[in-house]
């Protein structure tokens, strides 16, 4: 019989990109049209894997922000406020349908611009973005049923600033509930990943939304600051770093603007000795290596009960060896490119800090492309609460592993952090899960799974992870008044 060792490396399986249409230059999407920026300035967006320049996008200055907010205000007073709720819903449905129709193109562009593996942009980001639009389209004409005996009213103009980790999905999280509740929008995607938001602008144009209902402008922090400080904005929604979130909250203080913040996280993923260990290992992998660890709710602090720690760590190391790091457009890639050089430098500085602190570091033996920004999946074993790599958000594929003995101990450690966005619990015992969900100070607690999202389920944080909820019925509240 044939017993010689059989090497079965997967041949490259790149997703074609010829159907993805990217213009050389993108203007600002204001009042239903792509318009030249008053700033007259453009900046490049590049691929973090191939390092090629993908397009130039406009940099909006204060005057451009004024124009966008004005367009949103006029659209609010002239069309959107007066439109029947049912008609509003139809427009949102239309956006959802077109996203589905163009999902392949959107997935490819998302992976090119942001570096995430095509498997995730194809199976997670784009279908979910469509799902959020579908879900909130359904609420548009049912708001009085969502809040019985109350009269929900729209706010006006919403300024929305989104991060680079899930560019199109975050745009959907922000735009869908705002439109469903009757608000108009000025949205700014992150400077590093503007392309799918600009494709969304094309979709919105194609869906024939009244001009100005959604405006999408590109730029850096200064553009965002101008949006936040604009006097004619009624609502600010921000997803991003805790540092910027604090600046925004100060800027908004004393104004009448409604604010929601979805900020950083450093989630505890807790594995008990009665957990389904093999599936927990899978959940640990999904928790920290999903989207290269660029996930605010990533399970970046692993807590393992001491009596199973050895088993869990050895199985985790073995599983990591099967993770393929490489070209984001290859269908077999598990971990794509780090989003930017700046982010890679930050991750590398934390790898240095962890080693300096004397932690045992483990990285998988995978090959990493020589071109582009890549980071091997990494473990810090034997970490403790006092390690900086445990306390601070790294936002990369880096997992710290701590052990615990009792349930009281792990609750205390899990909560001993300024953040409180999410947590994971792995145990076969239902009563233990419910006990922990009441004691963990986290907006989301996943049980025997991790990083699961659904439009019907609210998402948001405690403490320095922000406030306000997105998704579900709760996700309507930040955009209405009674």
């Amino acid at each position: 019989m044939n017993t010689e060792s059989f090497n079965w490396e997967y041949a490259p399986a790149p997703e074609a990109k010829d159907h993805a249409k990217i213009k050389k230059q993108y203007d600002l999407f204001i009042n239903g049209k792509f318009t030249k920026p008053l700033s007259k300035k453009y900046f490049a967006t590049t691929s973090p894997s191939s390092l090629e320049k993908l397009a130039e996008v406009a940099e909006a200055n204060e005057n451009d922000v004024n124009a966008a907010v004005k367009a949103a205000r006029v659209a609010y007073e002239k069309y959107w406020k007066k439109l029947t709720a049912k008609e509003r819903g139809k427009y949102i449905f239309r956006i959802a349908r077109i996203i589905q129709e163009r999902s392949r193109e959107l997935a490819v562009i998302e992976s090119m611009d942001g570096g995430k593996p095509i498997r995730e942009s194809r199976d997670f980001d784009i279908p979910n973005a469509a799902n959020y639009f579908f879900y909130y389209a359904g609420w548009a004409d049912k708001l009085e049923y969502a809040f019985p005996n109350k009269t929900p009213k729209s706010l006006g103009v919403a300024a929305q600033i989104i991060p680079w980790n899930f560019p199109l999905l975050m745009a959907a999280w922000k735009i869908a509930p705002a439109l469903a509740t009757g608000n108009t929008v000025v949205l700014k995607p992150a400077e590093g990943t503007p392309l799918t938001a600009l494709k969304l602008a094309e979709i919105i144009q194609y869906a024939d939304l009244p001009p100005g209902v959604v405006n999408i402008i590109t730029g850096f922090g200064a553009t965002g600051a101008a949006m936040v400080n604009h006097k004619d904005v009624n609502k600010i929604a921000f997803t991003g770093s805790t540092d910027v979130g604090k600046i925004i909250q100060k800027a908004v203080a004393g104004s009448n603007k409604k604010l929601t913040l979805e900020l950083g996280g450093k989630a505890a993923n807790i594995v008990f000795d009665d957990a389904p260990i093999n599936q927990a290992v899978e959940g640990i992998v999904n928790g920290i290596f999903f989207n290269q660890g660029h996930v605010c709710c990533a399970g970046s602090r692993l807590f393992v009960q001491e009596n199973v720690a050895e088993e869990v760590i050895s199985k985790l190391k073995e599983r990591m060896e099967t993770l393929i790091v490489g070209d984001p457009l290859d269908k077999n890639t598990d971990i794509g490119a780090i989003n930017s050089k700046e982010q890679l430098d930050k991750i590398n500085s934390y790898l240095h800090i962890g080693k300096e602190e004397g932690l045992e570091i483990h990285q998988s033996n995978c090959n990493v492309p020589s071109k582009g920004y890549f980071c091997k999946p990494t473990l810090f074993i034997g970490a403790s609460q006092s390690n900086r790599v445990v306390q601070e958000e790294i936002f990369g594929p880096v997992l710290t592993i701590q052990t615990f003995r009792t349930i009281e101990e792990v609750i205390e450690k899990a909560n001993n952090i300024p953040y409180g966005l999410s947590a994971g619990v792995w145990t076969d015992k239902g009563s233990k899960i419910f006990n922990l969900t009441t004691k963990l100070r986290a907006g989301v607690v996943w049980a025997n799974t991790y990083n699961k999202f659904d439009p019907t389920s609210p998402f948001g944080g405690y403490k320095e992870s922000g406030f306000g909820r997105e998704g579900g019925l709760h996700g309507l509240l930040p955009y209405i008044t009674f």
Partner: protein
Amino acid sequence: MNFDYKTHIDQVGIEERVARFNTRSIKKETKTKGLKLALNMIDLTTLEGKDTEGKVKQMCFKAMHLADDIPGLPTVAAVCVYPTHVKSAKNFLKNSAVKVASVATAFPSGNSTLDIKLNDTHFAVDNGADEIDMVISRGEFLKGNYNFVFDEIAAIKNACGKARLKVILETGELSTLDNVRKASDIAIAAGADFIKTSTGKIQPAATMPVTLVMLEAIKEHYKKTGIKIGMKPAGGISTAKSALQYLVMLNETLGTEWMNNEWFRFGASSLANDIILQLGKEQKGFYYSKDYISND
């Protein structure tokens, strides 16, 4: 031995892992190599009441000549027949590398006495069977009579002599993945050389989640003892695509050492023809009628 411990398998997690295997894209030389390997792992099977020597003879010829118009094809690993057909199968296959496997132990229900099961096994082995596919007593297992199941497997293993023993768990009757894991542990501890999902007579037969749980049992046993156990999903795997998905799962769970027919088999009757069709397409560059492929 004590098998009263709790196993912890999360069905949702297993299904998610399987879904992830199935997103792997197998192209070009990886595909051809994988398909040829899958062909070489097949236990070509006929287990019907109406089996005759004539039928077995035709299947044996097919086992050695899968598609002679396509050069470079391997043979299948074995043919799998009832004990009464072992002698003739052995006779037809005598100059080839194809093994003869025989079901035994009151297949498929296993509801008989140990004496009869032992006689069944001896009969097949004495007639020249290289491999014995036994069934476990699922009723005793579900009653919690784990040591009964263990003892029975150990006794059959003893009766096998040099023949390799495949233990069929009939996972379609075990209901939970926790049970699948426990039955796998019992079979391995009792001396199984292979663990096998199904008889093919009960639905569902082999599924990827069930196979993954069994592969994990094999892996953990190997880690503890250094002893390898083989795996055979059987029944319900009929397309080249699903065979490749099983191979991806095998490759990423147990690794290259299991990627051969010494340690992995497909129990299937119609799978071979779909693989031949795909390999023929790779070679000719177009799909062609199934009438060009023999149905034996």
